[in-house]
């Protein structure tokens, strides 16, 4: 005879719980989006610029996170792709008067190619060595940019004018760039989410966690790793292109090693292997240095470094990781107590 014991209500609640949780998540996201769309009409020019830059960084961080967080290839040189994207846009507009809209996909495509090509020798480099090679790349970028001054305008850089809104929309240039960046961020966000949730995403994570087992299971490790490098570079290149438009200026010293370090910091603080983390990380790298400057005019990076180390102590898996841990604990609490299973660290 079957008995409906105490197990049943718990099971029913557990079946409902994920649906409700997902529902709440969606509501939350939509609310955030609504707020984001209202912001440009309430903020001043500089603040708006800062938030636009947050979106730009978020795109770059999405790219880097794909490579380092999901696929396990450490890159300390993504500033190079940011620079390529930025200079592609700048050169195309300045030299060939290409409409700015076309420069963005071109920058992305170029970086996709360069990233993929860089990914091929990178296949032979494991963790530490790849990090080193990319760090060396980051250190060398300003020198290379200054050397080919025929193209890049040398140390002086290239000045651009900020594009105005299309279709005669009544927005300021700042507001238009804000919405453009937000729009591109959303599109790329959804693309990344789809990519990472499906087979590709699982293959990438498998390669990160156990490349030999992944290969043994038939995953074409070499192809995936190079492709991931390419896509990651493309994202960062698009971000660089956008930043050239937003800042309206490119110069070699902007793309020094500190940029690559900043990007890395962004994904680590925001959360490795976490898409939402890209936004947290972008907020961190945009605003914390400013607050650091408020605290200490003289040594802002020192404060930045201290906060960085502090975050690592408290949340080694970044904000995204902490949020996930928290939501998992909440979900378990809601579903009631079950047998305690051995929990593996992420």
């Amino acid at each position: 005879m079957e008995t409906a014991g105490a197990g049943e209500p718990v099971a029913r609640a557990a079946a409902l719980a994920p649906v409700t949780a997902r529902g709440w998540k969606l509501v939350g996201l939509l609310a955030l989006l609504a707020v984001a769309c209202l912001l440009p009409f309430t903020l001043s020019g500089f603040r708006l610029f800062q938030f636009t830059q947050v979106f730009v960084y978020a795109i770059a961080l999405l790219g880097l996170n794909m490579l380092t967080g999901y696929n396990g290839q450490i890159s300390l040189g993504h500033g190079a792709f940011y620079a390529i994207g930025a200079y592609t846009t700048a050169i195309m507009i300045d030299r060939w008067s290409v409409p700015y809209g076309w420069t963005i996909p071109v920058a992305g495509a170029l970086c996709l190619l360069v990233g993929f090509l860089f990914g091929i020798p990178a296949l032979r480099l494991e963790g530490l060595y790849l990090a080193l090679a990319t760090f060396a790349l980051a250190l060398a970028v300003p020198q290379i940019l200054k050397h080919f001054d025929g193209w890049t305008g040398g140390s002086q850089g290239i000045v651009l004018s900020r594009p105005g809104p299309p279709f005669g929309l009544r927005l300021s240039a700042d507001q238009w760039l804000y919405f453009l960046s937000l729009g591109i961020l959303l599109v790329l966000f959804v693309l990344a989410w789809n990519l990472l949730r499906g087979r590709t995403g699982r293959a990438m994570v498998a390669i990160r966690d156990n490349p030999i087992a992944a290969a043994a299971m038939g995953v074409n490790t070499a192809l995936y790793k190079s492709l991931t490098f390419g896509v990651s570079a493309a994202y960062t290149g698009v971000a660089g292109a956008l930043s050239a438009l937003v800042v309206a200026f490119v110069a070699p010293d902007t793309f020094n090693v500190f940029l690559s370090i900043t990007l890395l910091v962004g994904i680590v603080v925001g959360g490795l292997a976490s898409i939402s983390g890209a936004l947290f990380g972008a907020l961190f790298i945009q605003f914390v240095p400013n607050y650091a400057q408020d605290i200490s005019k003289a040594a802002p990076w020192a404060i930045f470094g201290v906060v960085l180390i502090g975050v690592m102590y408290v949340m080694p898996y970044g904000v995204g990781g902490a949020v996930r841990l928290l939501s998992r604990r909440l979900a378990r609490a809601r579903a009631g107590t079950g047998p305690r299973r051995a929990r593996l660290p992420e």
Partner: protein
Amino acid sequence: MDVFFQQVVSGLATGGIYGSLALALVMIYQATDVVNYAQGEMAMFSTYLAWSMMNAGLPYWVAFFATLALAFVGGLVIERVIIRPVENAPVLTIVIVCIGLLVILNSIAGWIYSYVIQPFPSPFPSTPIRIGSVIFGPHDLGAIGVTFVMLLLLYCFFRFTSLGLAMRAAAQNPASSRLVGIRVGWMLGLGWGLAALVGAVAGMMVAPVIFLEPNMMSGILIYAFASATLGGFTSPGGAVVGGFLVGVIENLAGTYISFIGTDLKLTVALALIIVVLVVKPSGLFGRAVVRRV
């Protein structure tokens, strides 16, 4: 031909400095599997400390050895206080912490000492030494000498003393080291202290040549990486030899290959790193790491 010899000697001098910094990197890597990206900034900061002491009136060699002591203690404290909490965290976390350290040291140096480029004295006489028709700078020869003495002392320490043996053991096999009573944590701290000391020597030897300013070591750091890569990250001796090679190659390439000049020297180092890593990742003297599946 004279130019060749001069460039070689000068290359060996700078190579000794690259090799020293590379040695510091390899020592820490062997003990902790961590590449200390802050090694250059630690060396730079130590050099500034020496500079402050000399400005306060202390004679060169007093300041020199005092700096070595301070650097050693500093490295030890940094490992025990800052690195220890994340010892067992994922590698990327430790990398971030090292980079945080880099940023902090660079920023504080800029704050205390400003970004104005300062001259740094050399302890060696300034009259050039003439051997045959070749002219050698005494600082170059002196730097080579100091490097050799330091490396010799380090070698003897690790090879012949029981503390050195314990440090080697702790780096290779922490679990077994605990079983023979070695306090592995303190060995790591000592390792960082020694690495910082080596870095300080490198800093003080190179500052007279490239002048003292907070960003002075970033170029040297990439050369040190190139040296360690060329020599092999698993081989301390290899790192030093790698350093000499990189120094000589850098000078000869800059002299004889015209489009490189001074602009693209860093790019040469970058290219060297990539080529070595693609062709033979374990470097000239390193052991290929065979991973058991």
